[in-house]
């Protein structure tokens, strides 16, 4: 792995973002975390100004995605990422409050790699994120260029 993996976090709730980041750090993951609070800015970053995703070519990305975003649906973002030839290899972790089985099924069908429901119970929450952090530290993330 020549390039360090960048974690892209798309989460509109800053509190959640902060809690997620803290727990990732606590699990010993020191990768760069880029935080976006709405879908539009995240999409701009991911797909670049031309909307092709060429800007991310060669970058190793791991995407943390919330489904309930103020400006667009997380499902749409997931779909577009998985349809883009530069981004589709990047793992996507959906981390959201929704625990509807239909929704979960749909996300996996669209190509999400992990689906985590945010538990209200903080210990469970912290646990989930830390395990995710462990997961981050062991998985191989391919560079976005194919």
């Amino acid at each position, binding site marked *: 792995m020549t390039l360090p993996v960048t974690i892209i976090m798309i989460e509109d709730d800053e509190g959640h973002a902060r809690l997620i980041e803290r727990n990732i750090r606590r699990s010993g993951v020191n990768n760069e975390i880029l935080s976006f609070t709405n879908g539009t800015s995240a999409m701009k970053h991911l797909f670049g100004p031309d909307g092709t995703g060429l800007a991310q070519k060669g970058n190793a990305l791991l995407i943390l995605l919330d489904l309930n975003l103020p400006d667009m649906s997380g499902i749409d973002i997931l779909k577009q990422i998985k349809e883009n030839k530069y981004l589709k290899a990047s793992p996507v972790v959906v981390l959201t409050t*929704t625990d509807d089985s239909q929704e979960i099924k749909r996300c996996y069908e669209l190509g999400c790699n992990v689906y985590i429901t945010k538990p209200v119970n903080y210990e469970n929450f912290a646990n989930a994120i830390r395990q995710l952090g462990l997961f981050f530290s062991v998985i191989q993330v391919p560079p976005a260029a194919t």
Partner: protein
Amino acid sequence: MTAEGQRRRAFWQILLFAAGLVVLTAISAGSVYLVNKARGDNKWVVHTLEVENQLNALLLELRRAESGARGYLLTQGENFKADHEKAVAEIVPALDRITRLTGDNPAQRESIEKLSAAIETRLGQFAQEMEFVRQGQLDKAAALVREAAAANTTSTISREANAMIREEERLFRLRSVNADNSQTLAASLTGIGSGLVVVLALVSIWLVRRSARSRDEAEARLRDSNVNLEATVDERTADLREANDEIQRFAYIVSHDLRSPLVNIMGFTSELEELGKDIFRRIGGLTGVPAGGPPLDVAEVPLEDADKQMSADFSEALGFIKSSIARMDRLISAILNLTREGRREFQPERIDTRDFIEAIVSSLAHQAAEAQAEIHIEPLPNIVSDRLALEQIFSNLIDNAIKYLKNGVPGEIRIRGRTKLGYAIFEISDNGRGIDPRDHQRIFDLFRRAGTQDKPGQGIGLAHVRALVRRLGGTMSVSSELNAGSTFTITLPINWNASNRNADR
């Protein structure tokens, strides 16, 4: 068309019919009467003619007798004599006939008496005359003839006879007029009556047609309103369905959106807790060492009393916050589950209710044994319904029955079933603590409970059960008294039909 109007029209039709009948009867009776009268009148006309005829015949016979007598006087021919005698023989019976015919008329009777007297006189003269001729006393006979011609007997006869004929002619005219009148009357009565019947018939036909038309119109209106009603019902159903869907979506979204801040509150509360522990450890470390000395290992320094109190207060506050958050989370989850249930599609299947209930009861056997409860299952009707929904309904109710028994009293729970008009009625009754009638509505509300709160629960079960029963197309109710047990009654359609709520989604 009002009922009053219809009644009035029916009344008028009956009245018309009755009137037609009365008119017909009257015409018939009148016609019979008038025809009889006309016949009578005609008979009288004929009678008059007969009398006249007889009178003329009488006069003719008199003339024949006279001319026969004269011929005999002149020629003494026997044939004249025979002629005379034949005529005389005719006279008396003719007179008798006339007398009989005119017996009803006093004026004629008077005339006929005079006529009879005159004729008798005349016949006497004839006889005498004939006698004279036979004896050859022709002079005497001729004298007699002259005398008779001069005497007023003949004139009396002709006068009376003419008077009678005139009288009869008068009667003839009178009776003819009468007969004519009768006939005219009969004809006009028949004509007027027939006209009246025709008019009545026309009015009846008009009324019948009008009522038929208004009936047709009413039918058309009824059909229209039926169609409209169906359309309206469909429309309302669609509206309700939409409203229901909206509520479900609303509940779903709200509970999700409520959960997000709750994650933060809980997360940062836990962070605060950790932070608090660190802070108090440090406070202990700072206060537990003499000034200027090296800091001790913070974990091992006991806090001073005041600090200990502060730490306890801090933990208590956080504890309340956390337990409230947990409670709120449970409530939100409950709403979420309810909306999720509301969106689930039912899969109807034939259910052997007894096996089904026995399975539920055996899954609750542990709780039942703990509560010393016996569960009796009586014969139950089989139904076609959604298995999962029924499972939730019955296990909730049986679980409740076990849960809310009276302390220290062995429980007895009965599950009964029967059918009525295409519905299966299930009753789950217990001898438990019962429910105050004031709380009968309340227990079906979400998050509401009743009675002593000594058992864990969220107040969701019955709300959930009732929502399910309704979606299955049934109803449920409770009858209970405090300390006298409860009976929950569920009515469900035996067969799954398209009008069940499954088609809603």
